């Protein structure tokens, strides 16, 4: 269970949000909405532990995430604005390395299957610099296909640069993750309905 208590975020001189709190339990989806610059990405990075909180705390099953450290990082899968796809490596290599580093499941067969699922089978040996923006995003998202064992998914605008068929793939991936007892935090500007046991919405005001 992920709980945020009285979170406050200050970037530069501006206070982006204050007194923000929520509780996320299995099967639950949290949608973070707000205008550009309202602190959505900052909030998500805080939840990962990439960004320090100005005030308040974030706990995982009752313990602060800063204390759990590596133990907490083994529970999450994060997808940021930057896709962490290396130009010089092929899609297959990228995904293999990502899976091994994150210690999610992913031997060569599983990785190939994840790429096939995202429609990248024919491109899997091409260096990623030759892929289109959307295809590179698909490579990044294929990581989620291997991260079924991670209970908490934190996704920053997962639907950008994707075509409708890829949006549906991510949508179904998210839904099956939530059905299996996972949790997800998500920012998006698109109206993509994700069926969840329960959905919370946070609207950040700028």
């Amino acid at each position: 269970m992920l709980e945020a208590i009285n979170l406050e975020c200050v970037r530069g001189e501006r206070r982006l949000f204050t007194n923000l709190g929520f509780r996320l339990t299995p099967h639950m989806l949290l949608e973070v909405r707000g205008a550009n610059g309202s602190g959505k990405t900052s909030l998500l990075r805080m939840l990962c532990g990439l960004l320090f909180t100005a005030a308040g705390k974030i706990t995982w099953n009752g313990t602060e995430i800063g204390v759990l450290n590596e133990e907490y990082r083994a529970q999450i899968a994060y997808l940021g604005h930057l896709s962490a796809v290396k130009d010089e490596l092929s899609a297959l290599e990228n995904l293999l390395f990502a899976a091994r580093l994150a210690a999610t499941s992913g031997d060569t067969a599983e990785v190939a299957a994840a790429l096939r699922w995202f429609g990248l089978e024919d491109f899997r040996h091409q260096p990623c610099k030759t892929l289109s923006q959307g295809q590179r995003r698909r490579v990044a998202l294929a990581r989620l296909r291997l991260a079924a064992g991670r209970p908490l998914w934190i996704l920053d605008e997962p639907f950008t640069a994707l075509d409708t068929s890829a949006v549906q793939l991510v949508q179904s991936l998210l839904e099956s993750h939530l059905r299996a007892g996972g949790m997800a935090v998500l920012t998006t500007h698109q109206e993509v309905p994700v069926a969840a046991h329960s959905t919370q919405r946070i609207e950040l005001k700028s």
Partner: protein
Amino acid sequence: MNSPSLPDALRCVLWRDLLVAMRRRADVFTTLVFFVIVVSLFPLGVGPELKLLRTMAPGVVWVAALLASMLALNRLFAGDYADGALEQLVLAPQPLSLLVLAKIAAHWLTTGLPLVIVAPLLGLQFDLPAEALRILVASLLLGTPVLSLIGAIGAALTLGLRGGGALLSLLVLPLYVPVLIFGAGAVEASASGLGAGAHLSLLGAFLLVALVFAPWATAVALRISVE
């Protein structure tokens, strides 16, 4: 889910970086060619006086190695920072300092080790005797990893800053001084008949200390940089 396996993750980081370096060979060669050119400029500029060349050889090779390894430092984290791989590295369920150590090792293998390998050839230009060449290689072998380790701290601190390159050299070069003194000193000491043992032991000590502290300091700096 697989249990997070540390050796697997370290091997993965090492291999990935080596593979990326292999595919961007131009970068590796730039460092090496820079080193070769800088060292070769001295005999041309100073003239073919053998005695003079022999005395200045260790210093010249070491200064060139310092500059060449500094030239390559920018690349250590910049690529990962730009494409987001650094975030994933920080979020990996393993101790960041060890993952950083694997990155530094890969960096040294692609930038430091080539310098060590060509150094004896360059030493010949200066008419260094075989014994001095041997000590030169030994001192570089112990010293260049220290340069990579110390440099990594600077590279992590200046990550994402505008004009970070110049700042990096100001930050890192003073810290390189002890390595330079004992590295070049080792060759001079052996030439003057004192034996290079003491200098090499000190370089070894630097290496051990840097191995313990530099990855940790780099990891702290990286966490601040990705924020």
